[in-house]
Each structure stands twice: as C-alpha cells, then as structure tokens.
C-alpha cells in the first residue's frame, strides 16, 4: 500500500519530458488543421432534429436501457443471494436449536455452541428467536442482585430502606 502511494507520488512529481510536450503539441496542431478541412460545425435546429431522430439518440437510449436492465438484474441477483443466505442460516439455526433441545449433554452442548456461533450473522428477529430458545438454559436471577439495573430510584436507593426493610420513600411522608 505504501509502495503504491510512493509510486503515485513519484509519478506526480515527475516533470513531463520534452518529447511528450512536443507530441501533445503536434497532435493539437494536427487536429486543428484537420478541422479546417471539415464544414463548419453549427448547432442549430437542424442539428438537434437530426440528432434526436437519428442514430445518436437511438444509441443514447440503448445505453440508458442497458444501464437500467443492468441495475435491475444486479438488484435481483442481490435479493436472491440474500434470500438464499437467510434460508441457509435458518437451516443451520434449526439444526442447532434442535440439538440444543436434546436430553443428551454432548448433543445439546454442540447445539448450544452452534447456535451461539450463528447469532452474529443473524438478523434482529432471528437473534431474538435463538435467544428465546436458549433462555431456558439461564438460571433464575439471584435474589440478592435482581435490582442491580434498577436505577429509576437513583443511586441512593439504599437509603430508602429503613430498619424494618420498608421501601417507602421518606420524602413522601
């Protein structure tokens, strides 16, 4: 990468040789002389009429139609590929979740690990399905920690507990 950048920078820094300058100048001169032998180029109504009703417009429309067709074909192929990927993912997830529901530890462990490996490539809905299936593996939340995320009462919620364990808000009284 650095080597390519260095080559580009070197080419940009290089000054054109005298042979290149003379060749370009000669081509410009040749074109100017050749143009003198042709009739004057006038853009008038006749030119537009010939342009729009002749081969140039047909060619332009053909190119536009080809571009539209190419875009449609590309999008269709992309959609088909996505659908195939999702179908393949679901087949694997179904296999994994069936194994994860087994009574045998070896088979179940393989299914759980496979399901976990499939989640990063899942859509939100698919991840929700896998998570719902595997949630039965989670134990019940510990009673001593079940309020760890309850920040609605503020960080000093411990002070709301009185000696009898009453949770009533002292400011309300």
């Amino acid at each position, binding site marked *: 990468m650095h080597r390519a950048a260095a080559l580009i920078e070197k080419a940009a820094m290089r000054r054109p040789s005298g042979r290149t300058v003379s060749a370009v100048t000669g081509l410009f001169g040749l074109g100017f002389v050749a143009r003198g032998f042709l009739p004057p180029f006038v853009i008038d109504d006749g030119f537009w009429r010939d342009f729009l009703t002749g081969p140039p417009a047909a060619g332009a429309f053909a190119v536009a139609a080809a571009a539209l067709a190419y875009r449609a074909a590309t999008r269709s192929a992309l959609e088909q590929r996505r659908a195939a990927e999702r179908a393949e993912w679901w087949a694997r997830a179904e296999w994994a979740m*069936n194994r*994860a*529901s*087994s*009574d*045998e*530890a070896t088979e*179940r*462990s393989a299914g*759980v*690990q496979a*399901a*976990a490996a499939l*989640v*990063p490539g899942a859509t*939100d809905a698919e*991840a*929700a399905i*896998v*998570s719902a299936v*595997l*949630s*039965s*593996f*989670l*134990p019940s*939340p*510990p009673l001593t*920690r*079940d309020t*760890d*995320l309850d920040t609605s009462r503020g960080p000093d919620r411990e002070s709301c507990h009185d000696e009898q364990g009453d949770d009533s808000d002292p400011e309300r009284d």
Partner: protein
Amino acid sequence: MTLNETESWGDGSPRPSVAAFDARVAAGKADPITPSERAFAAKVYIMYNDRRGIPTEPWIKELAESS
C-alpha cells in the same frame, strides 16, 4: 422427549416446559445442563441485548465469563 417438551397442546404441537426437563433430569432420563451450556446461553443473551441496546444484568455477564 427433548429439553422443553412435554405433553402437547390441543393442536398436537409440543408444549414447552422447563419443569418437565427438570423432572426428567431428576428421573435420570436427561443430562443436567452444564455450566458451559449456561455460559453460551448467557453469551447469546448478551449479544441479543447488545443488538437492542439494552444493558445486560451483571450476573449474566459473570455467567458468560464463567466458562
């Protein structure tokens, strides 16, 4: 019989029940859930919560890192 399966609903589909699995474990018909399986389930739960932008309970994070 599988992990969450017991009698069926009226339409014949299996009715999920963790209690049925626990009963089968107690009867020796099913292997108990290992800590590794719990850890992987916790990892999935964390990944799902991360997608939703919901904070995960600390005890689940500890469970995921336990194995």
